């Protein structure tokens, strides 16, 4: 029991940190760069992706024995596309303002390799429970990445966070940050940080191993 809990926890954390879809796998870049000019857009895109990813992972895992492997990719795409259409219409009906901002990027969730990748690499080979945990972890990692990128760009580019002004009137917005180049610059720095952190950890591990080795 304890072991399976530990494993489930591991699968969840993996999506947020060790295999973060954006910072480590560098997937889903197109909507990532385009919609993250404000934190709230990041939240909306993250939640939409979360719904699609969790829904499709559940179905794919449930139906994995019924789907012949020759047509599995087509089936995955049909499942994903259905969920995306549901999200598209629901957002349009419930929160038209947000749908307006995200515009063309909602239908494009279908083509996100992040989602198809999880179906092929994980959901189609694991139990429903594990597939759900993996999907939730990956979606959470994607959401965190989108929101942090959106927040940084909104703070620097508009002096606001979630639409609330943070600085006085004298703040001169750094407009480039909410334009496409700002997305690349911010993402570049975040990837730099993640890689630097990984490298540092690796070196520490190596040193620890070397010390242990010399003791023997």
């Amino acid at each position, binding site marked *: 029991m304890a072991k399976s809990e530990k494993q489930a926890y591991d699968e969840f954390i993996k999506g947020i940190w060790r295999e973060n879809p954006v910072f480590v796998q560098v997937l889903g870049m197109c909507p990532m760069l385009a919609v993250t*000019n*404000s934190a709230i857009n990041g939240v909306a895109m993250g939640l939409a992706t979360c719904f699609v990813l969790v829904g499709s992972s559940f179905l794919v895992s449930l139906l994995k024995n*019924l*789907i*012949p492997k*020759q*047509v599995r990719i*087509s*089936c995955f795409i*049909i*499942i994903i*596309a*259905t969920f995306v*259409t*549901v999200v598209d*219409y*629901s957002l*349009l*009906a*419930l929160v*038209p303002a947000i749908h*307006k901002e995200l*515009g063309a990027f909602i239908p494009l969730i279908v083509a996100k390799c992040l989602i198809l990748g999880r179906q092929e690499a994980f959901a189609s080979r694991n139990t429903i429970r594990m597939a759900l945990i993996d999907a939730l972890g990956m979606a959470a990692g994607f959401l965190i990445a989108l929101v942090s990128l959106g927040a940084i760009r909104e703070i620097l*580019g*508009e002096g606001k966070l979630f639409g609330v002004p943070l600085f006085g009137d004298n703040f001169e*917005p750094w*407009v480039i940050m*909410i*334009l496409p180049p700002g997305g690349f610059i911010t993402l570049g720095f975040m990837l730099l940080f993640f890689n630097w952190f990984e490298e540092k950890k690796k070196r520490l591990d190596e040193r620890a191993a070397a010390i242990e080795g010399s003791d023997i």
Partner: protein
Amino acid sequence: MSEQQQAAAEPSSNRLVGTLAVAGLISGVIIIAVYLATFDTIKENKARELREAVFRVLPGVKRMQRLVIKDRKLVVAHTEEKGEEPIYGGYDAAGKFVGYAIPSAGPGFQDTVSVLYGYQPAERLIVGMWILDSRETPGLGDKIYKDADFVANFDHLSVDPKIVAVKKGKKSKPNEIDAITGATISSKAVVRIINEGNGRWLSKLPEPGAEPLLDKVATAAPKAVDAEK
């Protein structure tokens, strides 16, 4: 696994086609269901957005009705017909005509910009402007509706001889507006769209005082917009 065994494990093509057909069928049914379930809300959202915009671009208006050109005359039309280009008449609490809300659209910096603007024929003035739909650059072009100073330009703006966008701070005549620094193309697009709307409509409007009368079934101002005023 030998080659023969592998061949035996291969599912028949009927099964492959069948699986895809079933998946497509289920998916289609779900999509149609969601489309039907959300259709009314989406349509209503759009209608409400337009209704609220009419009351926003015409200050002092309490009721509105849909107007179309029929046989060269501007008449009230409550039901929609295909191919019509409606404008909206705004009336005050006493039922007196105040002004028209005219929709117009044209290319912006990135995509079509749809504008609704309020026009008072008696004084030949634009009294308000509202962007219905646009995909202008966030942070620059989207100031055409996010920048209160820019939107305020369209209050008491003369339409004669035509509206002109000038550099920010250079506005001196009643038919000029201050363009947004860094979003000149979007600012000029809004001006061009309104000028085009004027060109299309002003000559067709009846003489001031001869506007269509307020119908009994005219739409009242939504509470949310009414409270803002």
